[in-house]
Every structure is written in structure tokens, then in C-alpha cells.
């Protein structure tokens, strides 16, 4: 049957190419939108995912890591005293305006944490220039390589001003970018200095739990015992941030609807082209029925063609998706597809191909074997 399916596909080259192009367009659009979606959601939760802590403790009203409220510094000691807490690390987040020599200005988000541990943002694995020791110098901040276009092409060592105060880029990271604002990581003292944040205020507390302690239990204990704060596991806080931004920005609906339309478009392009190909071959299918092929055989023959189309379409479509991913990655829109997601793309391809074949199957199944005598 494989041989017959292949012969049918090969014989009608124009339609076969049309079906494969339909699959490629559909799967490329789905892959592209999914990639952008992954990038955006990663950016939304970047502050949390670029920190190294078991728990985040923030103001009790805060559900979005990109809009942290204010905490009293005394909460730090209260949290430290809770059973199961090993270490606490204060974090200060402040807004600022950066001005460069060439006149470029940019809004930045200063994120300060204690040196030398730098529990947020300055993961050695993501540092591509400079070193952490220099972060102790006056005015030292980090900047991301992919934000350089927004920062007047500023690179390592570039001097500039934040809120009118001297600063320079001591460390350059790669792929640590925020959603909306440009991240600049620094020490907690410099974040206060640049952002005019009083010593009594912090934005969040990162918590390491004792070895063997259950982070969820410690979180619950903090929430039960300390008034005015809310503790989250890092995963939950990242999830809450993404959920809040997706619901309130319309990004989820927008990208979701694009994916749905790509699915529908693919489904109909493939379905109608397969239907048209089946109509072109209706005499052959009628002959098959006439000489004794069952509907089951013919359905399998059409589904096998759809499967072969989906294999070819997926191979080409995924190649384009990966080229797109590499292309936008060079511009800083960095994301990766998990193996599960790639498998998902393949199953979507199968779904639209086999689903599209339903149009042709419906037509052929209704064909009477007697049609073979009608010339």
C-alpha cells in the first residue's frame, strides 16, 4: 500500500507540492508564534528565573515580579527567624533613566542584591564579558549584550549616567532581558544610590531553605506567621507573573488566536487540496471500489498519503522554524523548543494532515462502486 500511496502522490506533483506547502506554512506559523510566545513568557518571568533561591517573599499584594511593592527592611530578620529558613537575601529594584554620551536615553530597571553572592541576575554562566569583582567598584552595573541597541551601542567599560549619577558597565551578560524594561544588575547599595531608595526599604527577599526542608512548608509557615508579606516558591511566582501579564496584556489571546488561525488555515488548505486531488483521481478510486477494494482499504490509502505528506511537510516546516529561531536569536530574541514541543509540532502536523484528509475520505467513501460502469 505504501508503494501505491507514493505513486499517487508522485503522479499528481502539483497538488502534492501544494499540500506540502500548506503544511509548511501552517507549521511554520505555529512554530514562529510559539517561539515568540516562549520568548515573551521567558522575559516576563526573567527576574525570577534569573535568581537563585527557593522562595521569593514580597509584599502581600504583589502577584507580578515586574511590579514589586515595598517591604520594610525589618521583615528581613523576621523571615530569617522562621523555622526552616537557612539564608535570606534582600533585593532592591529601582527604576532609572540612563543617558549616554551620544545622547541616547533609556529607561532601565536597576536590580540590586548583596555582593559577592549576587543571588539575582549575575549568573556566571550568562556572563560574557567583565568580572564580578569589578561590580564592587563605584558606579558598576551590568548590561545585556542584546540590549546594546537600546543603550546607544554601550559595551563593556562604557561610562554613562543613571538618574544623573556616574555609572559604567562592568559586566556584560547574554540573554538576561526583562519584559518591557532593560535590566541592569548591581549591588544593593548602588541600586539604592542610583534609585534614591531609602535604607529602610527593600523590594523582595530571596530565601534559601535549610537542606532537607520542604520549601512549600517553609513558604506556608512564612505566610502564616508574618503579616503583610507573601511567600512564593520561585516556580509559583514565575507562573503568577506570566499568568498576570498574559491575562492583562492580551498577548496570550493575540498569540493564541494566531496559532488557532494558522491551524485552521492549514487544515483547510490541506483539506481542500487533498479533496481536489481526490476528485482528480475519483475515477481511480471508483475503479478500486469496483474491482473489490473495501472502503477501509481506500481510507487507509488516503490516510497513508496524508501521513507521508505530514512527514515531508514537517521536515521542511521544522527546518524553516529552526532557521527562524537562529535568525531571531542573533537579534536577541533567544528561545529554545523543548523536545516535547517539537513532538507537539509533529502531532499538530499529523492532526491537520489527517484531519484535512477527512474531506477527501468523505467524498470517496460516498462513491458508489457502480460508478465504475458510468464511463
Amino acid at each position, binding site marked *: *500500500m505504501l*508503494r*501505491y500511496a507514493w*505513486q*499517487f502522490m*508522485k*503522479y*499528481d506533483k502539483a497538488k502534492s507540492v501544494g499540500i506540502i506547502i500548506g503544511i509548511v506554512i501552517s507549521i511554520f506559523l505555529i512554530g514562529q508564534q510559539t517561539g515568540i510566545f516562549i520568548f515573551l513568557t521567558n522575559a516576563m518571568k526573567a527576574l525570577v528565573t534569573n535568581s537563585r533561591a527557593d522562595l521569593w517573599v514580597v509584599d502581600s499584594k504583589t502577584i507580578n515580579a515586574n511590579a514589586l511593592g515595598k517591604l520594610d527592611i525589618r521583615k528581613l530578620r523576621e523571615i530569617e527567624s522562621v523555622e526552616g529558613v537557612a539564608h535570606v537575601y534582600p533585593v532592591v529594584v529601582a527604576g532609572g533613566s540612563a543617558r549616554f554620551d551620544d545622547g541616547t536615553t533609556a529607561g532601565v530597571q536597576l536590580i540590586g542584591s548583596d555582593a559577592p553572592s549576587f543571588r539575582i541576575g549575575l549568573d556566571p554562566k550568562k556572563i560574557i564579558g567583565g568580572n564580578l569583582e569589578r561590580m564592587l567598584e563605584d558606579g558598576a552595573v551590568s548590561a545585556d549584550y542584546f540590549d546594546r541597541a537600546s543603550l546607544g551601542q554601550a559595551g563593556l567599560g562604557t561610562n554613562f549616567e543613571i538618574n544623573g549619577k556616574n555609572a559604567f558597565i562592568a559586566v556584560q551578560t547574554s540573554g538576561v532581558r526583562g519584559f518591557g524594561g532593560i535590566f541592569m544588575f548591581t549591588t544593593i547599595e548602588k541600586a539604592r544610590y542610583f534609585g534614591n531608595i531609602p535604607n529602610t526599604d527593600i523590594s523582595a527577599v530571596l530565601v534559601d531553605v535549610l537542606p532537607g526542608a520542604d520549601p512549600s512548608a517553609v513558604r506556608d509557615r512564612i505566610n502564616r506567621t508574618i503579616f503583610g508579606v507573601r511567600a512564593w516558591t520561585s516556580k509559583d511566582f514565575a507562573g503568577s507573573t506570566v499568568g498576570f501579564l498574559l491575562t492583562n496584556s492580551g498577548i496570550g489571546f493575540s498569540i493564541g488566536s494566531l496559532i488557532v488561525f494558522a491551524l485552521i488555515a492549514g487544515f483547510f488548505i490541506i483539506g481542500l487540496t487533498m479533496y481536489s486531488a481526490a476528485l482528480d*483521481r475519483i*475515477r*481511480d478510486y*471508483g*475503479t*478500486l*471500489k*469496483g*474491482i*473489490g*477494494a*473495501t*472502503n*477501509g*482499504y481506500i481510507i487507509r490509502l488516503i490516510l497513508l498519503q496524508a501521513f507521508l505528506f505530514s512527514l515531508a511537510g514537517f521536515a521542511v516546516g521544522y527546518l524553516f522554524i529552526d532557521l527562524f529561531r537562529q535568525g531571531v536569536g542573533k537579534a536577541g530574541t533567544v528561545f529554545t523548543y523543548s523536545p516535547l514541543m517539537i513532538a507537539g509540532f509533529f502531532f499538530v502536523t499529523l492532526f491537520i494532515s489527517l484531519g484535512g484528509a477527512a474531506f477527501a475520505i468523505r467524498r470517496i467513501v460516498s462513491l*458508489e*462502486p*457502480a460508478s*465504475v*460502469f458510468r*464511463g
Partner: protein
Amino acid sequence: MYRTDAWDEVDGIGAFRPFLSTCYNNPCEPLRTAMPVIAEVIQASKEFISGDTVIVALKPSSMELSMGKVTLIIGPSGSGKTTLLSLIGCVIYPTSGEVIIDGIRTSGLSARKMAGIRLNKIGFIFQQFNLLAPLTAEQNVMLPLTLQGIPDAEAKGRVRKVLEQVNMSHRAKSLPKMMSGGEQQRIAIARALVTDAPVMLCDEPTASLDTQSAHIVMEELKNQAACGKAVAIVTHDMRLKPYADEIVYVENGQISKTEINEPI
């Protein structure tokens, strides 16, 4: 008596007819000693409903196809001869009456079992040849064997043999569009022969052919009847009469007369 236990033959692989296989495998020693009836139409009628109108395509009619005979079904357009052929060919169900193929009553059979009868009991030859355009001659001939589930190696051997029988071995790898009408019809005959079905039904097999090709095709069909097959041919073409053992005339939706012919 009609057999009720014949399903193994319908659904099974290949047709069970040892008395024919010698002829198929060793063409062609004529079998003229016995002419058993292989297909019967008993007071079968066919009506089609179109909206509120009932169209009578065939009034209650009876006929038989015997092995070893060429039966010509002749009549003007719209007389009901193709309906008669469709009933014998198990592509439609009779509205009333019975159609019996190789001892199997077709009334009330499922579409799947009807397909089984078509595959295993009947070889079809069509006016427009009806070869599958994307497949080569060899693949077209092999198709019924594939549908029967015959392993490739065995099927290829049988295809080779039957292509030799119709002198078309040299066209095995050609697509239908690369062949003349006569060549295509010979490939269609090979496809009808390859399963060694006892009945061959031909719908205007010479209508699209020139005189020379028509003669070759009719000789081949006559040869198959001589090998013991029951061959039924629907035609307008009176020139085919000399090839027939029996002629059935169909007019106004019914069989008007049947005559025994002295064949050439």
C-alpha cells in the same frame, strides 16, 4: 441447491476453483466438457428513486452465465443492459429477486462482502479500460492480488505470467498514458485474469478500440471462455455477435429474448 457455507471463498485469499486453475496456469487447454452455471439472475429488478419519481431501470428479469460460454448482452442505450451487468457484478443490490454468484446469494450482503465477491469471483473489463493512471501496467495488474493479501513475491510471479499470456510483458513498466487503447485494454484483461475469477464481466470492451485491437481483445475473451470462464459482454456492437455462444437481448428494461449462437 445453493451453498450457504461459501464465505471462505468470498473473504479468503484467492478463489477456490481447481477445475479452472489448470487453464489459468497453463494456457490454454479448452474445457468444453461441462458448463456449470456460475452466475444467476432470478427475477431480479432494479428501481432507482429520484425525488418522488421511481425509475425502473430493470424489470424482473432472469438469466444465467455458464462457465465456458461467451454471453453477449445487447440492447440500445438506456435499455437496462448495464444495470443487468451491475447486478451480476455485485456493484448494486437488486430491488427484488435474487442474484447468485458461484452459489452465494447477494441479497442482504454487507458492502464489505459484496466487495469480497467482486474481488474474488469477478474480473471486470471496462469500456474506458479504467487502469489506475498513477500505477504502471504491472502494478495495475497486481492490484487485485494486493487487495487479496497475496504476498508480493507470489503476486509478481502471477503478474508476470498473465502479462505474458496477453503479450504485454514488454509494457510492464509503462504508465497507462504511455500505451495505446488496445494495449491498455489488454492490461485491463490481464488485471481481470490475474485473480483467476470464474466470471468476467465486460462493459463495451471494444467500444474505444479500432477493428484490429477489438479483434485481438475478443479473441482473448473467447480464449478465456474456452478455458472455462463465464464471460459476459455488454455491447452495442453487432460485429461481436460471431464471438458469442449466447446472446441476451435487453429492451425497455427487460430481457426480450435469449438466443443460442453458433460461434465462429
